[in-house]
C-alpha cells in the first residue's frame, strides 16, 4: 500500500509517521503470533 503520489510533500512525513505509529505495535503482535503458530509444526 503506497500513499497517494499526488500528496503534498508536507503531508508525506505525517503519512509515514502515522502509518509507523500503527505498524510498529502490529508488527510486534504479528511477530509474537508467528512465534506461537510455529508450535503447530514443532510442538
Amino acid at each position, binding site marked *: 500500500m503506497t500513499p*497517494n503520489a499526488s500528496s503534498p510533500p508536507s*503531508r508525506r512525513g505525517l503519512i509515514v509517521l502515522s502509518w509507523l505509529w500503527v505498524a510498529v505495535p502490529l508488527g510486534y*503482535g*504479528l511477530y509474537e*503470533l508467528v512465534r506461537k503458530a510455529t*508450535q*503447530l509444526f514443532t*510442538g
Partner: protein
Amino acid sequence: MSPPVAPPGWSRWLVPPAALSVHLSIGQAYAWSVFKPALESALGLTGTQSALPFQLAIVMLGLSAAFGGTLVERNGPRWAMTVSLVCFSSGFLLSALGARTEQYWLVVLGYGFVGGIGLGIGYISPVSTLMKWFPDRPGMATGIAIMGFGGGALIASPWSARMLESFGTDSTGIAQAFLVHGLAYAAFMALGVLLVRVPRAPESAGGGPAPLSGVRVSANSALRTPQFWCLWVVLCMNVTAGIGILEKAAPMIQDFFADTSAPVSVSAAAGFVALLSAANMAGRIGWSSTSDLIGRKNMYRVYLGVGALMYALIALAGDSSKPLFVVCALVILSFYGGGFATAPAYLKDLFGTYQVGAIHGRLLTAWSTAGVLGPLIVNWIADRQEAAGKHGAALYGLSMWIMIGLLAVGFVANELVRPVHPRHHVPAPREAGLDAERQQSA
C-alpha cells in the same frame, strides 16, 4: 460538535491509520483472558466471575453500536473517537482503582460497562468516514480498520502478559497493569482523534471523496427494509459458523487426531489457535478488498457456499488428514473475518453512505446473537455426544452438519438481497431543494 472537515490537500491515506489506532486499541477486548487467572487468584474469583467484565463489555459493544450509531453520524468521527478514547481508557483506570482497593465491582463497571461503550462507539467510529474517503475501494478501506480489531488482541495478549510478569499478579500488580493500559491506550488512540477528517464536498474523481448522488437511506428506514434483515441473517449465520470453530479450536484439533498415530500436543494446539487468529485477520483485509473487485453479493456467496463445503470436508474426511483439517479451518476463519469486514461495504452498496455507520451499528446485533448461538451449539452438542459415549471426531460431527445448515440459510438470505426500493430513499439535498421549488411554483 461539527465533524472536522479536511483542509485542501489533506491526504486520504491519513484516515486508515487514524481508524487503525482506535481499532487496534479496542481489539484488546479479545485478550481479556490474560487477566483472568491473575484476577482469580488475587481477588478469589471463580472463572465465571472473572469473565464478567469481558461479557458485559461485549454486550455494551452491541448496545452502544446499535443505539449510538445515529449520534456518531450526527457528531462525526472525531467526536466518536474522543468518546471511545475517554470511555475505553477510563474503563481501565476505574479497573485499576477496583483492583487496588480489591473492589471487583469497580472492575466490572469500569472495564465492562464504561469500557464497553468505548468499544461499541469506537468500532463504528471510522466506518462511514473511510467509505466516504475511499468510494472506489470501500471494502479495502473498512477491511483495514476491521482488521485492526482482530490485530488488537495479537498486540495486547503478549504485551499484557509481560506486564503482569513484571508488575506481579497480586492486586497491586494488576492495578498497575490496568493503569498503564489506560494511559498507553489513551495516548495511542489520540492519533485517531487528531488525524481523522471528513472529506470536503465532492471535488474530484481520483482524489477520493464520494459524489453526493446515489442511494441515501436513513438508519430508521433501513430497519424497515427486507435487505437489512437478510443481511442480518447472512452476518449472523457466517459469524456463528466461524465461532463454531474458534470457540473450541484447541480441544477440537486434539479430539480429531486423538486416536491417530500422530496426536496433537497441547502446545501444537495453541499454535493452531494462533494460526486461526492470523487467518481471521488476513481474511478481514484480503477478502474485503477482493469484494471491491467481484462484488459484495458474490463475496458472500463464497463465504457461505465455500464455507459450507469446508465444513463438509472436515465432517467427512477431517480426521484422515491433518493438513486437510488445518487448511479447511483456516479458510473458514478467513471467511469469518472477511464476513465482518465486508459488511459495511455491502451496507454502503444497499443504503449509501448517508447513515451507513448507524446502520452498521444496528447490524452488529447479529454479531451479539451469533456470539451466543455459536458456542451454545458446539458446546451443547459436544457435551451430549460425550455423554452418549462418543469420542474423538465423532463429538463434532453433528455440529458440523448444523453449521452447514446455518450457512445454507445464510446463502439463501444473501440470494434474496435486492436493491432497496426507492420509496425508502431520502432525497439528496439538491433534489430536496428542487422538490421544494416545484411545490412552491405549483
